[in-house]
């Protein structure tokens, strides 16, 4: 007789928790979803991954022209171009990952209504598409440091990966909340671009954080992306030293975002197929 090695019990109101063992069993699917998104992204494009470079570069040029030359925003000792590019590098990652994640569940409704797998894989794998773009865009950053004769600090280089991870956590936490909300309320589709637009101004991408009165700066660090960008500017462009206290607040706040997002996701997850 065949040995029974699996027993599944299907009941209403399962416990709201993540089944890590099951996730591990489905790890290949995680990889395949990411792989699919990357493949599809660059199909039928003329310059493919070139867009990952052109887009932030062009934005940098526009920002430099308008915010630096016209509006006169100063960027301290470093040229505004590389200053804003550092911000854009991480902000663009966040903006695209946040957008991808919040659309991920609705975008995959065909699969969600037809087959079982841990749903969390979909939004989680959606955070990785932007990482590929991030690495392409980093090449431009390297080019800019050579052009402006800036030697990035060692501390900054070591912090790139942790800051990317912090951005991923932030994008996942906030995105997953809106992704779950999107399943029920399609209004989210209108809200997400709006949030990204506002977020650009609530994050020191265009301006240095020193523009904000000192006593309010901690408020900004509730926005994890703000600390990500500050840390990178301090570390890579030698703009003061890294503010570990504010970074600490940001890590905490990112974890809170993730916790809220995951909790809401798990609470609504079991109805996805019913209402999507």
């Amino acid at each position, binding site marked *: *007789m*065949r040995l*029974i*090695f*699996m*027993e*599944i*019990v*299907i*009941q*209403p*109101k*399962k416990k709201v928790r993540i089944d890590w063992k099951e996730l591990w069993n489905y790890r*290949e*699917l995680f*990889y*395949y979803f990411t*792989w*699919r998104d990357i*493949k*599809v992204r660059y*199909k*039928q494009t003329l310059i493919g991954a070139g867009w990952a470079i052109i887009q932030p570069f062009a934005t940098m040029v526009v920002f430099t022209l308008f915010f630096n030359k016209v509006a006169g925003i100063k960027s301290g000792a470093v040229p505004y171009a590389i200053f804003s590019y550092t911000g854009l590098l991480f902000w663009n990652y966040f903006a695209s990952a946040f957008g991808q994640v919040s659309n991920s569940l609705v975008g995959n409704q*065909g*699969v*969600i*209504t*037809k*087959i*079982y*797998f841990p749903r969390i894989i979909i939004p989680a794998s959606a955070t990785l598409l932007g990482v590929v773009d991030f690495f392409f865009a980093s090449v431009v950053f390297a080019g800019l440091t050579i052009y402006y004769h800036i030697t990035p600090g060692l501390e900054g280089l070591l912090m790139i990966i942790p800051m990317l991870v912090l951005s991923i956590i932030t994008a996942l936490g906030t995105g997953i909340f809106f992704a779950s909300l999107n399943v*029920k*309320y*399609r*209004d989210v589709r209108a809200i997400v671009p709006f949030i990204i637009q506002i977020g650009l101004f609530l994050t020191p991408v265009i301006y240095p954080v020193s523009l904000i009165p000192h006593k309010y700066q901690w408020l900004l660090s509730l926005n994890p992306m703000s600390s990500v960008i500050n840390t990178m500017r301090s570390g890579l462009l030698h703009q003061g030293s890294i503010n570990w206290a504010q970074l600490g607040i940001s890590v905490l706040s990112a974890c809170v975002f993730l916790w809220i997002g995951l909790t809401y996701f798990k609470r609504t997850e*079991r*109805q996805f*197929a*019913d*209402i999507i």
Partner: protein
Amino acid sequence: MSQPVIEVKKLSKMYHIGHERKGMKGTATFRDALLGVAKKPIELLTGHRLKKEEFWALKDINFNINQGDIVGIIGKNGSGKSTLLKILSRIVEPTKGEVIIRGKVASLLEVGTGFHPELTGRENILLNGAILGMKKREVRGKFDEIVAFSEVEKFLDTPVKFYSSGMYVRLAFAVAAHLEPEILIVDEVLAVGDAAFQKKSLSKMSSVAREGRTVLFVSHNISAVQNLCTRAILLRDGSIQAEGPTPVVVRKYAESIAAAAEQPLKERKDRQGNGKVIFTDCQSLSSPRRALKLKLSYLNTTGKNIDDIKISVAIKDQRGETMANLTNTVLDQRIELDKKEGGIYLNIEEVNLASGEYYLDFFLASDDQNSEIFDLVEGGARIEIDNRDFYDTEKQPPTSAIALFDFTYHQDKA
């Protein structure tokens, strides 16, 4: 004695149906949510809750399936088959009760789930395999077999959006057919593709079954169930109406269809569609030999004339096999509905079918982008076709064949 591989205990599933959702399978908006919040205090104050309509898609279902069983689940549209399947596949959660499944399950509610049009055939095999729960090693190991089964070798590196629908289905089914689960749950996926391919997939299914795996097979197609399944479960309005050996259950099913067809069309409850326009009556008018004339009456509750509609009458035999599907749109015939009620006549010059009992399905929808389904009644009427004297020779045509043709024989004169 081993335990059953699937145990279903007191399973129920309830859906809320809001009125605005009926038409557009709607997604709620914030506005509705805000309105809901506003209603709460009113409910609290008045002490009675504004009721949402509840719909029980499944009511207290119990059954067991043992290892190696091949069980067919039959029932009309809307009887709860799909809901049951979705619960067993863990796509939706039950409202009450539980299911215990012992073994590795694969469910196929659709072929080609997760296929991406931009990806090539090769890429989609890998992706689809992973979505269906195959390990990378497994997919790679069976890759050549899958490709051979699908017969699309030449187009393996072409994006599937350029595939014909036949190729698409073949590739999708090929991946699914190479899953090796202990329990296989299959929806009407076999009803796709051409006849040859259907045959191929049916024989694949029975070979799966011969290997001692458990198969749960949902279908409209009674003859497929009869060929494949040893046991069957008949669902009706969310409850089990009969369970047991396939022939017994199939007979019950035929009886229930016959009983339903006796009911006046107007009073039928088991209809689908949004109900804005419904069929109220079907009358067979006196007609010459070989021909059939029907008058279908409708009631339009929208209060407006409806310009373009799609109407179809399907003729099915007693096993549920569709003999003909007569749709006005293939004739480019426009039909308009009056704002109140009216009649539509169907005129069949020659009913080329063997004598016997047949059932008619009635379907009415709008013929625009929305293709709103107004009404669908399965087995809405029963007709008796008497073609014993089809050839005007007082000789009865062979009853074993279904179709009757006009034909003559000639021979070379010696």
